[in-house]
């Protein structure tokens, strides 16, 4: 049997931790969850230090902890930000720092569990909230997205269903996934360099998701 994926959750709300623990236990195969009890330090010491994925509540009773987030990313950790906040600037800042993905707390097990699995495997995962933030990105530094990619992203944010997106745009679900993932890779290829971003891009090129020309062009 393959080894279980381990994740560490840093969140100061016990109810959230309990909920995520229940989702992890109910998943097949289950995910092993370590509770850091809202203390970032526990992500740096065992057993948290060797967890494959870090689930990070951006606001631990204060302003957004961007610096701590940056340190985790710089150490090569796969961080899933799991936050109450959904405003574009916060989401895009986290993405720039090199987080693996961003989920809002309204996004439940349907997104968190697949995101944890994707994180452990270095495969991109874009939640509808992250898609929404990217679709309204107006910064000059943003990567160039095709019209089709933009439509897909908007529809993904609105419907939270790849099947509905596929039905609306008249393409297959696989195509929808490809568009969404390509956008994520384009974002991993811009802004502040991070080891996690490089790993994501490398894996995407290996898998043939995106070509080198798409990223440099």
């Amino acid at each position: 049997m393959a080894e279980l994926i381990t994740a560490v959750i840093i969140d100061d709300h016990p109810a959230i931790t309990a909920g995520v623990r229940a989702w992890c236990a109910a998943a097949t195969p289950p995910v092993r969850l370590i509770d850091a009890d809202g203390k970032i330090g526990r992500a740096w010491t065992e057993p948290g230090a060797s967890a494959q994925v870090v689930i990070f509540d951006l606001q631990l009773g204060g302003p957004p902890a961007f610096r701590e987030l940056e340190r985790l990313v710089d150490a090569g950790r796969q961080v899933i930000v799991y936050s109450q906040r959904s405003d574009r600037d916060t989401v895009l800042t986290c993405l720039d720092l090199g987080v693996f993905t961003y989920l809002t707390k309204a996004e439940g097990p349907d997104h968190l569990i697949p995101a944890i699995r994707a994180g452990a495997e270095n495969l991109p995962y874009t939640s509808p909230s992250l898609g929404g933030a990217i679709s309204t990105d107006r910064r000059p530094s943003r990567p160039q997205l095709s019209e089709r990619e933009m439509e897909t992203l908007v529809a993904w944010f609105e419907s939270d269903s790849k099947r509905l997106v596929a039905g609306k745009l008249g393409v297959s679900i696989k195509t929808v996934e490809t568009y969404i993932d390509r956008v994520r890779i384009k974002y991993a290829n811009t802004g502040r360099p991070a080891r996690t971003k490089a790993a994501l891009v490398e894996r995407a090129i290996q898998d043939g998701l995106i070509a080198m020309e798409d990223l440099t062009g």
Partner: protein
Amino acid sequence: MADARATMARLRGRLRIAILIIAGVDLLALDLPALLTHLDVYLVVWPVVAGYLTLIAVLATEGVLIMRGWSWGGWRWPVLGLTLAVSVLVNALLPVAEVPGYANWAIDGIGWVAVVLLFDQHLAVLLAALAAHFATNFVHLGLGDDFTPLALINVGTDVVTIGAFQVTAGAATWMLRYAATSAARATEAEEAVREAEMIAARLHEDRRRRSHDLDAEVRPLLTGLADGELDPTADQTRRECAIAAARMRRLFAEGDDVDDRLLHELKACVDVAERRGVLVDLATQGSWPGLPREVRRGLTEAPVRVLSTARNWARVTVLGTDSSVSVSVVADGDAAGIPAEADGAVMITTVEDEDRLWVKATWQS
């Protein structure tokens, strides 16, 4: 209000000019000849001439202040003191016998300068200053050896005739200022009443419109329920009631004073669905401008229908981009009665699959 203030400022400026002209003519046409023809009378000449020039300097300063639209401010009091000092000085250098005569040019000159300086003060201040000035003449007369009832009567006559002019001028400016202030206040009050009437009329119109909308919407439903035409247990009736309830909430929300009307009205509809036990996830992204009521209605109408027919869950999103605003609802509802196009130039798209319905309303700016 601003108009009334501007009128008042203009009136004050003109009054100041009028008073300055009177004072200037008095000092130049009456007092200067009197001074020049009696130079040999004063005990020492130059301080008297200096006193005269001081008064002229005060009037010149007043001219500059009027042009700049400035007031004397706190400087008025030392200058008034200086003016009264000139009054004392001229009296001191004047032989007692000349107090009732032409050589005593300062007896009227000082008063006019006081009227200029105390232009925007209470009338009582001017009266006190004039009284102090005239008192120096009487004191001088009383201290002298040549005190006679005739001299007293002469000075008294001077004081009464001169003082009467000056007090009248001061009183006139005071009353004009009072009238201008009352007029400005009356205008302000009138404008406030007009504004209140306008707001009331608009509120009334708004309420009338909403009551009309409600009538068309709810009356048939209530009448149907009352006379038994509609079956309260029927799904169709329940759906219509849910839609009417959501629309009513939106209608009430339309009158609220909030920053983001679109989101506010949408939340009102979400609220109704949540009360029915529907789990609603509301997400927004981007920004949108303040939209007119028709556009907001167009954007919310179709989503409201879907929300009202949702059985268990719904996802509501609002997305604002540079050129468009869209409201989208995905829910486990049915597509019956969803219009293809809403009012207010809003485009509606509908996508259905096995268990869910997705309706999106988009407004292009």
